[in-house]
């Protein structure tokens, strides 16, 4: 397998890893958001709870969850190593650097944006995944499904959490804005006719994910107060 390790440890191989995991995580975002948007339906979260329960109990999904975690870890670890070696490639910094003249701020800030997303992710996992999976047994809703919906109402009632969620989601949005189309380029997918399409999809996708995720905490904060 030496050819494989050769490839994966080369600069381009590392980029391939970043883009494959990144695109995989994008697909997760799409599923995640689709289910979350169900929470906006005026049915007291019944359908949302059902979907959430399915996602946390189906054996196939549970298996994919492991892959998902692996994807996160590889994406994060790889970016850490790449960033470190990139910093080593310029030991003496410029005194004056007009970065905005040649590139967008968010394309140059993928590490910071990614770190913000990671920070948010940890809080987010603590709020929902760890809470529901390990700490407490969720009460049942009127259909007898574990009631994730009520947990959401409680979390988003806190204005500070709301702000953290919004920051996290916007960091994610800018991360995607560069990351999505960058991933395709790293995979060598390039065509005079289709590359603009990929770039368009990337922008649309970033807006959809950002606004979709942003609307939920805001909606819950204003329209779904806890009962007590």
């Amino acid at each position, binding site marked *: 397998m030496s050819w494989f390790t050769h490839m994966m440890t080369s*600069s381009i191989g590392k980029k391939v890893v970043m883009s494959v995991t990144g695109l995989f995580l994008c697909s997760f975002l799409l599923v995640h958001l689709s289910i979350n948007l169900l929470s906006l339906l005026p049915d007291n979260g019944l359908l949302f709870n059902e979907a959430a329960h399915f996602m946390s109990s189906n054996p196939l999904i549970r298996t994919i969850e492991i892959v998902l975690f692996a994807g996160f870890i590889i994406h994060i670890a790889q970016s850490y190593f790449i960033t470190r070696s990139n910093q*080593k490639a310029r030991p003496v910094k410029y005194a004056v650097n007009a970065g905005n003249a040649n590139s967008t701020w968010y394309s140059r800030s993928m590490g910071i944006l990614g770190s913000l997303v990671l920070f948010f992710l940890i809080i987010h996992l603590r709020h929902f995944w760890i809470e529901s999976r390990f700490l407490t047994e969720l009460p049942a809703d009127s259909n007898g499904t574990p009631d994730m919906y009520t947990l959401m109402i409680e979390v988003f009632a806190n204005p500070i959490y709301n702000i953290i969620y919004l920051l996290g989601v916007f960091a994610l949005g800018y991360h995607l804005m560069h990351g999505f189309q960058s991933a395709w*380029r790293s995979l060598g997918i390039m065509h005079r006719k289709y590359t603009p399409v990929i770039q368009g999809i990337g922008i649309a996708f970033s807006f959809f994910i950002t606004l979709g995720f942003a609307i939920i905490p805001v909606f819950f904060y204003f329209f779904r107060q806890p009962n007590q």
Partner: protein
Amino acid sequence: MKITLKVWRQKNSKEKGQFETYSLNSVSEDMSFLEMFDVLNEQLIREGKDPVAFDHDCREGICGMCSMYINGRAHGPMQGTTTCQLHMRHFNDGDTIVVEPWRAEPFPVIKDLVVNRSAFDRIIASGGYVSVNTGNAQDANSLPIAKHIADEAFAAAACIGCGACVAACKNSSAMLFVSAKVSQLSMLPQGKPERESRVVAMVKKMDEEGFGNCTNTGACEAECPKEISVMNIARLNREYIRAALASEEDV
């Protein structure tokens, strides 16, 4: 025009450097940026000081020898322009201009604004060629090449190897340079036989030299004096993945 220059001075690769400030009182707007440095150096020599060392040769934007990071940008503020072709009419009377050398681990400073770019030569030596000995060639027209392929290969081949891409990249990545050569040769039928081994060897050498990794910011393309497209980087990636995964050859 009156111009104040803040210039990086460094005696050699071992000693530490610092900025020195110089004032020039009669800069003509018809001067090129390097001619302004000629005037500065004449002045320094007459004052018994050490002139500023900087790389330059053809002064018509093609040899790739001149460098300089001017006010935070490789080759200064004008698009598609080398430092030698940058003229003072693009600056204003009273401006302060900060001039630094290219900064990258694989481009160590030799003196002042002069850096060592021989890493680029070593990358070419590792595979940036077609292995054809003199006298081996068949008739030049025996392989027709579609015009758009020839044009695209030419656009990539226009790289002058100045290193602005590395200097402008926040990661000091040399991908634009490497991709330009890989693209040129992989598109042309003459370069196809060595397509796989070439890209793998050149990327390996590039990594060994200590260049950073590409994060697709596009700064290289924006600062390239020959406006080499980042599409070449995508092509490099594709060529590499193809060579590593799809090719049955062990490369």
